[in-house]
């Protein structure tokens, strides 16, 4: 048999094979739970009032998008970047600087449809440059260098008054208003956020099986072999940072529209680390993880205070709960909540097969 030249092997792409490939490509379409979650998210405005819609679900989706960008880098690329929130915050600042806000001395007053693409482009560039620095390092040094970028940006925004307006930040940022719709009204904004989150989720899922995403996983598993297969591994890593930066920037734009203001507090080192906690608590092997993590984080942040006060404790200790939850999840699962979920399902399956076998025996 002659190797490399036997091309007779044209497997008939039967309908069944195509169907299998489709299912493998989009596993969530086969999952009734995923359909249920999607349905609930779509009809949420009917169920939830404005507070829940925006403060809980809108915020969850926005934080989820930012954490998703970290999941993409860490899960598929093996690069833990602590600057994803910084990129998001940079995009938010750019929306405020190029668009309209209460600080007329700073904002350039561009319409939203010009300011937003500008913010996305600049934030993506920012993330790509940061990534180009970070790919020179590995492991803990990547964490350190991205944390340093995050910390530097935080202190810079604090001290720079010409663009970032120092520690007061930029307030009353204008939000899109067209086709007779105020897109920052609760229900409209919820759907915008949901649409962006779903697009990012499916984009990450799709790209993970595209040549770029597959190669990124190859670079994660064995960069030396990837180079020996013809891949420029550093270029691939930088491209991954660019892709993730764009996703984080989308989250940042939504965040500044949500709060209508941005200040150094939004890009603090603590907030950078929150994104890491969200991603790790949710799980970084699948794109759904960051959204689960964000949901848990937002619930704790919102309700832990009341809960603690009810038990006669200081409400400001809610971070203690988050920290304990983080420790517990990392202790029992290497892959956050989705790891726990997988373990639970596997043990359930094992139990049923065991009992089934018992009946036959």
């Amino acid at each position, binding site marked *: *048999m*002659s*190797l*490399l*030249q*036997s*091309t007779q*092997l*044209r*497997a008939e*792409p039967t309908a069944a094979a*195509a169907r299998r*490939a489709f299912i493998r*490509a989009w596993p969530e379409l086969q999952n009734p739970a995923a359909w249920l979650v999607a349905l609930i998210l779509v009809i949420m405005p009917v169920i939830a009032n404005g507070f829940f819609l925006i403060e809980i679900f809108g915020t969850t989706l926005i934080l989820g998008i930012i954490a998703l960008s970290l999941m993409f880098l860490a899960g598929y690329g093996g690069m833990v970047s602590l600057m994803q929130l910084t990129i998001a915050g940079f995009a938010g600042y750019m929306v405020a600087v190029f668009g309209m806000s209460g600080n007329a001395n700073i904002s350039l007053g561009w319409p939203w449809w010009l300011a937003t693409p500008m913010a996305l482009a600049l934030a993506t560039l920012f993330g790509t440059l940061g990534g180009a620095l970070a790919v020179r390092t590995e492991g803990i040094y990547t964490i350190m260098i991205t944390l340093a970028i995050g910390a530097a940006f935080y202190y810079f925004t604090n001290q720079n008054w010409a663009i970032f307006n120092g520690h007061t930040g930029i307030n009353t940022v204008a939000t899109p208003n067209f086709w007779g719709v105020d897109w920052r009204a609760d229900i409209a904004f919820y759907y915008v956020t949901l649409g962006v989150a779903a697009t990012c989720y499916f984009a990450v899922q*799709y*790209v993970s*099986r*595209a*040549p*770029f995403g*597959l*190669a990124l*996983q*190859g670079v994660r*598993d*064995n960069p*030396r*072999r*990837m*180079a*020996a*297969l*013809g*891949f*420029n*591994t550093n270029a*691939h890593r930088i*491209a991954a940072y660019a892709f993730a930066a764009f996703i984080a920037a989308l989250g940042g734009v939504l965040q500044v529209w949500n709060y209508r203001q941005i200040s150094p507090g939004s890009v603090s080192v603590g907030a950078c680390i929150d994104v890491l906690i969200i991603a790790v608590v949710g799980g970084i092997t699948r794109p759904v993880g960051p959204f689960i993590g964000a949901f848990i984080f937002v619930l704790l942040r919102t309700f832990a205070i009341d809960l603690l006060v009810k038990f006669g404790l200081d409400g400001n200790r809610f971070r203690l709960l988050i920290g304990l939850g983080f420790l517990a999840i990392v202790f029992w699962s290497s892959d956050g909540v989705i790891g726990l979920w997988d373990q639970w399902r596997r043990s359930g399956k094992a139990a049923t097969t065991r009992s089934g076998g018992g009946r036959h025996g």
Partner: protein
Amino acid sequence: MDSVAQRLSAVGAGAALELRGVTRLFGALAALTDVTITVRPGERRAVLGSNGAGKTTLFNCITGDFPPSSGTIRFFGEDITQFPPYERIRRGLRRTYQISALFPGLTVQDNVYLACRGVSRGRFSLLRPGQNDALMHATETLVQAVHLTAVKDQRVAELAHGQQRQLEIALALAGAPRFILFDEPAAGLSPTERRELIEILTSLPAHIGYIIIEHDMDVALRVVESVTMMHNGRIFKEGPPREIESDPEVQELYLGAGHE
């Protein structure tokens, strides 16, 4: 009889691979010292030598995993000494690793697909390959060529050792290889698997040359036309297999232990 030796020492303008005075230092330790080798296109050669003779270091210098400390490397006439590994691979150089260097979390098919993608355009493509993607067909052909079709959807971590070795070879055959470096491809293979390996090597198209590092003389001498003996990071002897095998110095140095 002498023609092979002449060709080996000839300064080949049309050489596939030409190393001139290649030295590689690790600190004060010279892993390779002044290695000069010329390999014709399509030539198949074995590199023999005891552990620490510098065989794998030689491969690492050629592929650029560790660039040489001094000396030049030409690939089909082009000076590739300063090229990063991926540039060398894109020019038709391939290698396999002594210890399988695969992607354990990905399936067999994905591993081979990556190899095919690495030496073609669209490495950064954000679009998934469709049903009629040319590289998907190339992937399937290659998977079949190394007898792994039955396990193509399995994760590599679940494969048996022999299957991983076969996959290792498949990755080196992706695209249009012009010259391949095989680093102990038979390591840990059963006799049956060795026969399959020999079949794969001997059925390679004639224009593809290779260098093979192999301790098993039965494998090595059956698939090559010339042999380079290395010792302590230097070229010790070059010649056709029979000549090397019967050389008393070589026997004393290397073959003696294995051929009692």
